[in-house]
């Protein structure tokens, strides 16, 4: 059952992922004054300043931007902190300059960039938002005790209960309580940031591989640190596998340990980034054709993709949380003979999986 679900989720993810190459190809063939490829990559990538809009043309217009702090560490010169406005338009400051949003030093020495970039700023914003929202939800419980939920508390309670009952309890089993804080935080972190990424001018945080990498590594670490004897027994002496096959099975199983979080990383990154790329591609069509007639079509498709992205936002948060819970569940699972049967799950869960 779990494997079936997994396969289904992978299929779903790849269908969206497949949109990416076609759209980038489209832009690559179109090399005019307006370069959609560059525009899209600029939008989905990170930046050292928060750029909202440019009034007038690129050279002489007014840029509506929020400068962000640049924090660079060079082994030779130590830490240097300054505003990103010092580096605007390719300017050089303290021996540092930006090359394609990449901080490099003039003399070619190594620079460790710890700047508060657009993504980091957005990350802080979402962290503040998460803290405000969920402490006020917790406040509702402190105020009303065991009474009926109200306001923001009643909005989030079913989601929290869903994560607890449908994700954690079902996938992890009786030891689920230890992992609830991580699962809930990951779920709401991804969901909130997916939604923030859809806001015009927002940063593409969950579509950044560094962010998904960090989350996937955290999941991997939690899985490994909570693994029991049974989990390693499955890897080094897979039950039901003849002894001569073990030299093949053990490397496969070890690769499996790392492929699982890798798939988490790529799935979230690709889904969110692909959504942004598709939306931006539809908008780029207007500028490629230089025709207002294309606008309604572009807008209609853009709107459709955006609506789809709203759904993908919560779906990907759910998938990431569910798969994390499943990996943890696999690591803490006690020995059960019945588990060797594939598809031992119950009916409603299967129907639920097909609904996605």
């Amino acid at each position, binding site marked *: 059952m779990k494997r079936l679900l997994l396969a289904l989720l992978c299929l779903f993810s790849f269908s969206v992922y497949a949109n990416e190459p076609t759209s980038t190809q489209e832009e690559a063939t179109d090399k005019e004054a307006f370069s959609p490829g560059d525009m899209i*990559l600029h939008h989905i990538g990170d930046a050292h300043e928060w750029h909202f809009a440019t009034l007038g043309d690129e050279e002489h217009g007014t840029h509506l931007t929020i400068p962000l702090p640049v924090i660079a560490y060079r082994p030779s010169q130590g830490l240097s902190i300054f505003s990103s406005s010092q580096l605007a338009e390719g300017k050089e400051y303290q021996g540092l300059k930006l090359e394609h949003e990449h901080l490099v030093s003039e003399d070619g020495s190594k620079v460790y960039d710890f700047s508060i970039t657009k993504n980091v700023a957005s990350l802080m914003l979402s*962290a503040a938002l998460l803290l405000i929202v969920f402490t006020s939800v917790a406040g509702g419980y402190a105020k009303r*005790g065991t009474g009926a939920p109200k306001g923001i508390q009643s909005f989030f309670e079913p989601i929290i209960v869903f994560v607890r009952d449908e994700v954690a309890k079902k996938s992890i089993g009786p030891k689920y309580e230890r992992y*609830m*804080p991580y699962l809930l935080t990951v779920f709401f972190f991804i969901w909130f940031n997916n939604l923030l990424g859809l806001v015009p001018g927002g940063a593409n945080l969950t579509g950044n*591989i560094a962010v998904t990498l960090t989350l996937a590594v*955290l999941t991997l670490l939690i899985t490994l640190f909570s693994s029991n004897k049974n989990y390693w027994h499955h890897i080094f002496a897979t039950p039901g596998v003849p002894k001569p096959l073990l030299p093949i099975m053990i490397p496969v199983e070890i690769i499996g340990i790392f492929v699982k979080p890798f798939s988490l990383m790529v799935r979230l*990154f690709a889904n969110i980034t692909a959504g942004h790329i598709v939306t931006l591609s539809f908008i780029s069509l207007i500028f490629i054709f230089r025709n207002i007639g294309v606008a309604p079509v572009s807008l209609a498709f853009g709107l459709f993709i955006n609506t789809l992205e709203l759904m993908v936002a919560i779906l990907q948060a759910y998938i990431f949380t569910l798969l994390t819970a499943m990996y943890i569940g696999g690591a803490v699972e006690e020995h059960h003979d019945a588990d060797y049967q594939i598809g031992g799950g119950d009916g409603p869960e299967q129907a639920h999986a097909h609904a996605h």
Partner: protein
Amino acid sequence: MQIVTPELGLIFWQLVIFGIVLLLLRAFAWKPILSSLKERESSIEGALRMADQAKLEMQQLKAGNEKLLAEARLERDRILKEATDVSNQLIEQAKNKATEEGSRMILQAREAIQNEKNAALAEVKNTAAQLSIDIAERILRRELTDQPAQQQLVDSYLKEVKLN
């Protein structure tokens, strides 16, 4: 290729900020929320269980009442039956006594009558004897001087005569 190259700075900040958010939310949000949810669920469950118990108790009480009622009914029937029995017995007794008394009285009366009759007969006999003697005396006064011999003769005659 830039978008698939993770940047060190972002990884660092993500780790730090996510870690802080995780710890803060765990302490100030998830723990109170989850414990409140658990508390509420257990209180609801407890209330349901209590309601079930109350229902069971009610049923037991009802069954007890019915049993009591049935017992009372049985007791009443028993008392009624006893009372009927006692009254029947009393009537029977009274009847028996009355009959007994009646027969005793009849017997007494009969005895008295017999006595009276005997007395009356004796008197009649005496009177008749006296009368006969008187008559005989008068008859024989003239004829007989030996009165005792005469009397003896009359008595023997009288004994032969059956009055009844």
